[in-house]
């Protein structure tokens, strides 16, 4: 029990200290998660839109597949990507294993089903009249997509927030593909896992709190932006 309080104190100390291992992990986390969320949104939103709007055979199956992949465990992602980017893998020569881009690839794959599934249901949930109205006003396919996304912005935002939460909180992929290498690929979560395994529960919790503070900051900024935009 007492390590909870200790963890809080420790968290403040960590943040107050400035520099050092914690800040290295914070920056690594921010760097990787930013790349991953951007990549997964760029890939996922158009796919989600297609899945939500377009009519094509097998659409229902694709939807079920995307929903299934919400259950993709980090370990599986880690293993699969590892198979491709390890020295013995087809992309071994790129030297991506145990690097930040390596982690980003894994995290992007992890977050993609979330972005796709939630975007698709956001689009499916839109008022039927929207599509007709846009076509009637002369929207082309791309314009239809952009405006629909903008009208469903609120729901697309929550998809992004959910995906970001998944990315920033995951351990398995960072551990396997990043290697938790100190000063280099150690993220807050891998550091946390390490401290916990060492029995340094207070320290583990402190890092967790630091992570949540970061997440809160990101979400608070988003919330203010949303309020400004009147959503």
């Amino acid at each position: 029990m007492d390590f909870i309080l200790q963890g809080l104190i420790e968290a403040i100390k960590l943040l107050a200290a400035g520099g050092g291992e914690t800040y290295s992990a914070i920056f690594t986390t921010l760097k990787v998660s930013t790349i991953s969320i951007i990549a997964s949104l760029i890939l996922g939103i158009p796919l989600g839109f297609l899945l939500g709007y377009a009519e094509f055979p097998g659409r229902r199956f694709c939807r079920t597949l995307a929903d299934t992949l919400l259950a993709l465990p980090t370990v599986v992602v880690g293993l699969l990507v590892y198979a491709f980017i390890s020295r013995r893998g087809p992309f071994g020569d790129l030297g991506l294993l145990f690097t930040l881009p390596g982690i980003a690839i894994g995290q992007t794959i992890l977050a993609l089903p979330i972005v796709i599934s939630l975007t698709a249901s956001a689009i499916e949930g839109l008022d039927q009249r929207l599509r007709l109205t846009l076509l009637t006003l002369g929207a082309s396919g791309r314009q239809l997509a952009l405006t629909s996304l903008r009208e469903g912005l609120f729901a697309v935002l929550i998809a992004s927030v959910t995906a970001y939460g998944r990315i920033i909180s995951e351990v398995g992929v960072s551990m396997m593909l990043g290697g938790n290498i100190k000063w280099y690929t150690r993220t807050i979560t891998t550091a946390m896992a390490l401290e916990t395994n060492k029995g340094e529960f207070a320290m583990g919790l402190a890092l967790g709190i630091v992570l949540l503070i970061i997440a809160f900051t990101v979400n608070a900024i988003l919330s203010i932006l949303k309020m400004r935009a009147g959503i």
Partner: protein
Amino acid sequence: MSELIYELSKLVHRYGEHVVLEIEQLSIRKGRIIGVAGPNGSGKSTLLKILAFLQAPSEGMVYFEGQRVTFSDPPPRREATLLLQDPYLLKRSVFENVAYGLKLRRDKNDLTRRVGQALTWVGLDPKSFTHRSWNELSGGEAQRVALASRLILKPKVLLLDEPLASVDAASAELIMQASFRARRDWGATLVIVSHDLIWMHEVADEVLSLFNGSLAGTGARNLIMGPWQISESGLWRKELEDGQQIIAQSPSGDQSVAVLDPSDVSISPKSLEPASQRNAVKGAISQMIFEKNQGKVLVNVTADSISLYARMTEDAIKALSLHPGQTVWVSFDFDAFQWL
């Protein structure tokens, strides 16, 4: 005679198994204002959606400006714009809503002025409306914003589905003006669906009637709802609540709706008795409407719970000196009905 803008041929539309539209042939000339009337569910909105290329018909051909429209290739959607029956505004300001179509066309010259003008056409003061949000409008205001966002596009074809629903009298007038202006200023062709027959007869060059998905002549129609009861003589009978009755030959079912052409109805200021093959119903004149395009007068008689139109010449009216409020007898033959 001007060229054709639309030609429909052997058109059938189904929802599931249910045929809702079946038009053997329909041509619409450029620059005409066509009204479409018909009871609920007769297929008016479906027809407009097909004319707007939003929905491919189940069968049949649609030609636009002489070209066969294939609904699989992107059809010429920017040429025809439809005001939906249940209009939808984007979750933006009124300005953004009205300007949206122009922005899609990358036509951003002089936007403020043009948006202001379109709003004025529908009777909304640009000063007080441009900056409002989509959800700060009353029902009729929203309807008119939706219309303004179509007018501003100056499309070749304007398709309006119930533009008058929840719009006030002054706006109804303005919408009529806007329709005339669209034809005059940029040669638009208009197809307008409305239940306000009076307004429609004023605005339209020609009013098509749809019944159960089929075109059924032009002009207003009387509808007499069931239930019908079979009488001893083998004829069918509808009882009014005041004891009067209407007799008909062979409806298709006891809940059938009878359609009666107003030209088949006569009016007499003097008492009439039902004759062997002719109904006579006593009522009071509730309205008299001048049909500009036909130069005739529609006289609406309310008899208990039923309201019937008779189409008469001005001279006949003058001769009988009919006026609203007057008690009259309406007569029509037992076999004057069509059935729905």
